[in-house]
């Protein structure tokens, strides 16, 4: 593929709002996961909640999109000059030439979860004025962003569970390469809701303590929420020439099980191999791997096997889900930004929450931050349904 420049990007997670707070927390090895009660959940749980989402007020022109997921999206859009960069791209390319490709798993379903509790006891009808389209529907996130920026071209939401907002980078590359768009807003947003909190609990995949990726005592995920946005452009048409480039991607399916990874990480390995091949890189040229690393016993074991099969035991790697929790449909986008941070800041983030590495996983998992001037990062995102996506970002 021809590399695409991330001409602007931003992230918001339990670590804070905007890039500076992400960088500071990563450098300080801080976690945003805390044990707390939330909404009407009947038990306390460890979660990576973004502070202040409920207080976010959407502008009048898009207030019909009001729901937790779009509040979080709006909060994130306001950071790091991202909005200015998008408006500039719209001026340059035209409103029908900037695509909106975003990932989410649960969109604004929290609004409908609440609405179901408020159904009319006689008729069973949902409360008057419940806005399905602008809240619960999976497309709501891209609809909100497209409407907010007055865009008129291509838009959709990729919803492949926890690989969603990684796969949008690949989709954007194909659209731009085919000439169907000049630039694309990519990324993803996922926010806390009862479906995932009770759902992952039913699968017994939620850790009682903050999650411990790749730890010998790991016993499940911590559910987080987050938002990440990036503007992708062809380098020759972008105003800035230096920066972080998407240089490769690989997408595969496990074809194994709906909610368990292939035990040998076969699909994961093929996704990483495809990404390397597209980027024209050897495994030794990857300076850091941002792992999917959910902290479930099966994910980390399978991913660890896939990583060592391809990279051996020496490539530094870590999961940043100990910092943010598993932000599900936002994880791919958020960790793409963390990959960019590793490249621009010249440091490899240690995994936090992990104290004793699983001796059965042979990869070089970082327990301490490492200063390193690296050129290429690979980041993994895997989802339910056996959906795998690996992305490679490079410094140019």
């Amino acid at each position, binding site marked *: 593929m021809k590399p695409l420049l991330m001409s602007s990007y931003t992230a918001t997670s339990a670590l804070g709002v905007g890039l500076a707070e992400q960088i500071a927390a990563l450098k300080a090895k801080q976690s945003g996961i805390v044990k707390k009660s939330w909404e009407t959940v009947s038990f306390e749980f460890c979660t990576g909640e973004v502070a202040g989402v409920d207080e976010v007020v959407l502008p009048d022109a898009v207030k019909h999109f009001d729901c937790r997921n779009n509040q979080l999206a709006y909060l994130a859009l306001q950071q790091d000059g991202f909005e200015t960069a998008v408006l500039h791209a719209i001026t340059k390319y035209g409103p029908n030439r900037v695509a909106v490709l975003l990932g989410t798993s649960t969109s604004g*379903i929290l609004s409908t979860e609440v609405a179901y509790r408020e159904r009319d006891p006689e008729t069973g009808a949902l409360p008057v004025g419940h806005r399905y389209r602008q809240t619960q529907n999976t497309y709501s996130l891209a609809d909100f962003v497209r409407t907010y920026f007055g865009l008129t071209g291509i838009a959709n939401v990729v919803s*492949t569970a926890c690989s969603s907002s990684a796969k949008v980078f690949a989709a954007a590359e194909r659209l731009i390469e085919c000439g169907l768009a000049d630039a694309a807003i990519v990324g993803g947003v996922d926010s806390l809701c009862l479906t995932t909190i*009770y759902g992952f609990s039913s699968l017994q995949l939620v850790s009682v303590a903050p999650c411990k990726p790749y730890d010998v005592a790991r016993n499940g995920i911590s559910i987080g929420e987050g938002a990440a946005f990036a503007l992708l452009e062809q380098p020759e048409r972008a105003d800035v020439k230096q920066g972080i480039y998407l240089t490769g991607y690989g997408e595969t399916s496990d074809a194994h099980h709906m909610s368990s990874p292939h035990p040998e990480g076969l699909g994961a390995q093929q996704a990483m191999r495809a990404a390397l091949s597209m980027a024209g890189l050897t495994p030794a040229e990857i300076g850091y791997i941002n792992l999917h690393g959910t902290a479930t016993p099966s994910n980390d074991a399978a991913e660890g096997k896939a990583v060592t099969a391809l990279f051996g035991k020496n490539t530094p790697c870590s999961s940043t889900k100990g910092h943010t929790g598993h932000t599900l449909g936002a994880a791919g986008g958020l960790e793409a930004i963390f990959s960019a941070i590793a490249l621009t800041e010249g440091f490899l983030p240690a995994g936090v929450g992990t104290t004793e590495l699983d001796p059965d996983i042979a990869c070089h998992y970082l327990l301490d931050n490492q200063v390193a001037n690296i050129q290429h990062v690979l980041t993994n995102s895997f989802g339910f349904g056996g959906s795998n996506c690996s992305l490679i970002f490079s410094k140019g």
Partner: protein
Amino acid sequence: MRQVFLESVSVIGPGLPNWETATSVLRGETPLVLADVALPPAALLPPTERRRTGTATRLSMALGVEAAEKAGIALAALPSVFVSTGGDCENCHQILETLASDDRSISPTRFHNSVHNAAAGYWSIGAKSMETSTSLCAYDATFGAGLLEALPLVVSLDKPVLLIAFDSAYPDPLNAIRPIPYPFGVGMVFSPVQTAQSLASVRFALTDEASAQMEDAALEALRLMVPAARALPMLALLANQTAGRVVVDYLAPSQLAIEVTCL
């Protein structure tokens, strides 16, 4: 973008149990009679899992199997694009009911079926396909969004790709605010090169022209009722085996102009 080749079509909808019947209806030879849609069991899954699958999986799997078989391509070899407005809507409703009740225990199966890509997940497992698969949502633009993802994928991978655009209904109370009266779906296999099997060459571009309507009132009503049925004007061109250009609904103000040349 450059042209690609349509290798096969499958359709399932009310009064349109298969492409052969749909061809006759779209040519105006037989009237459309809206009838409940009988869906075959999810053929690619083991019997225990087959019983638990709902409309979304059965509909999409039937569309995919028929399109792949007609194209003469092994299921496992096909990358896939799934697009629908609501995923498995019956399953979603059941979870919402449970979460609104006193006992919020969701079954694990219900939860993993809640992801928008559940149908795609069952497909890749059943088809034993490790090829890339994506699942999209664009509200009412189900069909257009599918084409806009699938055709660049054909060009990028330089191999045939399976598109499955399908929609099904929520039960009430969501049905009252997001009515989708009938399940409807389209399966298509696109190839980067013309083959002996190719039915048509296809090119498309975004346009701000108005989208085409169906001349027949019943077909036009169906087109507007179900997002995936926005494919009907393109299907009518194929059924009539005429070369032509048709504009299908996408996301206003952008629509999708499709040029079809039947081979």
